[in-house]
Structures are given as C-alpha cells and as structure tokens.
C-alpha cells in the first residue's frame, strides 16, 4: 500500500510523520536537529529518499542537511569527509556568498532599508529549498537577504543565480517584518527554463523569455503601504502556488489580497471574493483539480491569528472569488495560532490530502480534500514548514 511522509520544520527541530494511504494512524519521529530552527524540509521529486533541510540558528548560522534514506540518517554535504593532508576542508554546503563580480554583482550591493536608506546585502539564512523535478542533486535555495542560489552537487556547494538581483530593481527591494526573504520557488514542469520566485517585500519575478534576465511580474498588485500603490516592485507577496499541469496559472496570497494570474504573472486580478479576511500566508492547489485552491485567512497584519478565534481553511472550487469555510475537526473557539507561509501542502492520493501546521505546534491533516480534519500531532514547537511526499 502507498505511504505518506510529512516533513515538518519547527522552531526547535524537524519531525517526520508517516502513515499508510488511509492517513489515519501516524508515526512520529524526531526531533531531528533538536534545538535548531528548521525553516524547511523537503524531498526530491526525482528521488523520494533524497531529503534536504535548512537548519539555522542566530548563534551558529546556516547549516544544510541532506538525507539519502528518507530521513533516517542525515549528513552535512561536503562536510562529512576529512580533508587529505594539506587540503583545505570542504564544508561548503552552508557557504552562501553573494555574487559581487563586476558583470553581475557590482550594482547590486544595496537594497532599501527600513529607514529608506540603502543597505548592503547580508546573508542570514535559507528560507526555502526547492529540489529539481528531474535531478536529485540539483536544488535551489531561497535566502534572506533575498537571492536565489543553486546547487548541482547535492547541496555540497552553492552558486547564486545573480540575474535575479542583477536585473535592476534590487535597490527598491525592502525587508518585510520577518526580513527580506526569498520564500517561494516554483519550477515549471513543462518549461525547464522557467521558474517563479517571490520575495517579501519585493514581489514576484520570473526569468524573461528567451533567456534574458529576470523581470518583475507584479502588474495588478496594489499595496497601500507603498507610496505608488501599484509600483513595479515592493509588494509583500506571502506565497504563490500553481498546479503542475497548468504552470501559467498562478495563485497568490499577498500580504493582503488573494490574487490570480492566467498568463504566467504578466497580469494579476484579485479573487478574494467572500473571504472573511484576505490577509494570510499560505495558499495551495488541489492535486487533481487545478481550479480548487486553499487558503487560511488570518485576521490582519497586526493580529496574526484566525478571525473570531476559529481556525478555518477556506476552499474555492472555482479558482477564487467563491470560497467555503472548512472547519470540521478544527478548533472553533479560542484558537489564536498562525499558519506560516511554507506550512501548507497537498499529497497526490486519489482522495487528495491537505496538511498544514500552526505556530501552536499542531499539524492538521485532511484525507478528503479538506472536508474534515484531524490533528496528527498537537504539541510540537511552532511549525515553520510542512511538506508531504506520497510514496509507492
């Protein structure tokens, strides 16, 4: 029987939750990397036993962990072997150095700071890892301060894709309250030269057609905290999602507003519809119905918890605008948790499973597309990310 493996990153370690295809009885293993912030754990679509984890700490900086056995054992790529005599140690899996070459990096040395001055780029952590759809050794990293890196050797070494910061709008990017992180990387299954990324607070970007540098794709976004509300960049995009069968259709949870684009981000339109609030962080798409999407409305940017103390996932079966609350099995009173941007995912069983984690340490699962929910675990540290693998 098929199995499911849920990968959970928390403020104090990683956890792996496993079940069979019924998704009723769960085994919990962990904590892995106890005491460290685990921003993201994710499996390779090309090799489900290959996992990557972003392990980070305000004291000790960034670590990248890799597993080749589905999370049973882990290693720091490149750091596991002792150097030969006279050889400098490798240990470069956590070395994220911005490209400052004259060709690409020189004009990119500053971005906008909170006080409107320019501030140098400073690496802080990896927010998000996105493995290649076809090669288990190729993986992308979205980092704070915002940039995208790529490894083609299983995360042993990293190189910045400097064209993103190099296209010219970098000095107008600015940090959101949580920092200036590149948090979303979506790979196009039909076009290996295309991907989408999103940054708080800069917006969404994709490589221009024909192999040209990256370009902003933010037309249609409006943000009242910007002096020019429909500026080309500066929008606090919280998350973007797509269905692999239809990579030109994008759904976005912005700081405020749920948005949709039908032309690869060239133009966006609002689809918040009847949501009780359109602030939130997560958004995801049903595994088999590309018009069914999920969000978790959060009261406001000043009050990061569900409206009325009721934790509800909202589902639209029409690609937005018409939303229905899903609350069966979720707490409907006195609930004041948040659901962070990387903390929702879907599996690919025939009856699509939906998962999300909260800052209160709960991981909820639905095995019926969101109709009903049950907690897998209730008392983990604050959940930063949730990913799922559907295994044969």
């Amino acid at each position, binding site marked *: 029987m098929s199995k499911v493996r849920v990968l959970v990153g928390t403020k104090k370690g990683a956890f792996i939750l496993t079940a069979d295809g019924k998704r009723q009885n769960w085994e919990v293993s962990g904590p892995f990397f106890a005491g460290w912030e685990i921003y993201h754990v994710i499996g390779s679509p090309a090799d489900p036993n290959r996992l990557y984890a972003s392990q980070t700490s305000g004291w*000790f900086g960034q670590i990248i962990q890799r597993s080749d056995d589905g999370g049973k054992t882990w290693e720091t790529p*490149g750091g596991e072997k002792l150097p030969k005599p006279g050889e400098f140690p490798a240990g470069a899996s956590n070395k994220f150095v911005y490209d400052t070459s004259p060709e690409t990096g020189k004009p990119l040395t500053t971005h906008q700071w909170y006080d409107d001055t320019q501030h140098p780029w400073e690496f802080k952590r990896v927010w998000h890892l996105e493995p290649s759809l076809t090669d288990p050794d190729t993986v992308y990293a979205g980092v704070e301060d915002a940039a995208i890196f790529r490894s083609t050797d299983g995360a042993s070494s990293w190189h910045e894709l400097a064209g993103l910061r190099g296209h010219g709008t970098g000095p107008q990017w600015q940090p959101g309250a949580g920092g200036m992180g590149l948090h979303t990387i979506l790979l196009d299954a039909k076009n290996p030269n295309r991907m989408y990324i999103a940054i708080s607070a800069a917006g969404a970007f994709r490589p221009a057609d024909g192999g040209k540098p990256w370009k902003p794709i933010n037309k249609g976004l409006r943000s009242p905290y910007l002096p020019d509300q429909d500026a080309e960049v500066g929008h606090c995009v919280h998350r973007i999602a797509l269905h692999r069968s239809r990579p030109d259709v994008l759904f976005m949870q912005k700081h405020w507003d749920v948005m949709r684009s039908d032309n690869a981000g060239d133009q966006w339109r609002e689809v918040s519809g009847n949501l009780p609030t359109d602030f939130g962080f997560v958004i995801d798409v049903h595994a088999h119905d590309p018009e069914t999407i999920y969000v978790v409305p959060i009261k406001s940017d000043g009050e990061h918890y569900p409206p009325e103390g009721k934790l509800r996932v909202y589902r639209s079966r029409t690609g937005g605008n018409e939303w229905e609350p899903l609350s069966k099995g979720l707490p409907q009173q006195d609930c004041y948790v948040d659901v962070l941007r990387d903390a929702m995912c879907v599996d690919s069983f025939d009856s699509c499973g939906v998962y999300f984690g909260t800052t209160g340490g709960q991981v909820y699962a639905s095995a019926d597309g969101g109709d009903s929910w049950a907690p897998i675990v209730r008392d983990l540290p604050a959940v930063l990310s949730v990913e799922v693998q559907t295994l044969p």
Partner: protein
Amino acid sequence: MILVVLPAHLRTLARVEGDVLLEVAAPVTVRSVLDALEARYPMLRGTIRDHVTLERRPFLRFFACEQDLSLDPTDVPLPDAIASGKEPFFIIGAIAGG
C-alpha cells in the same frame, strides 16, 4: 594537545561527545585553534566564524584562563596554559535568546 570546549549544538553537529582534543602547531592562537578545529570537523565551518571574512559570529565568545579573548586579535599567542592543554579554550554561545 589543545582542549576545546564547544557549545552543545556544535558538539551535536560535529558528532562529538564531550570536549575536543586538537593537535595545533605553535604558535597557538585563536586563529590556529579554529583552523585546526575546522580542518578536523569541516561541518563546523561557517558556524563559529564567517566563511569569507573569518570574523567571529556575533553571538559567540572565546574564553580562556578566565579571560574574554573575543575582541583580541586572532593572531596573538594564547596563554601557555592553553597551549599546553592544562586549561581549555572555551567557545561559548551567548545566553541571549533561546
């Protein structure tokens, strides 16, 4: 041999239990101790000092013989008691946060 005391999280990362003994050629300095530590445990590179600038990470301190050496030049020889292994070289994580 030089005795190095690591914070718990770095012991876990380096997969060591207890303190670390290192062979360090004279002159024994903060830099030479860290060079030897990172050569023996490459996974610690970048966790104590920056990969490129080699500057100490802000929330770490270096103590030895009841002195805070964190702000001293890293090429100054460490006290004889450290160089002889009688006293440990401490790498300490700040208590702030947690």
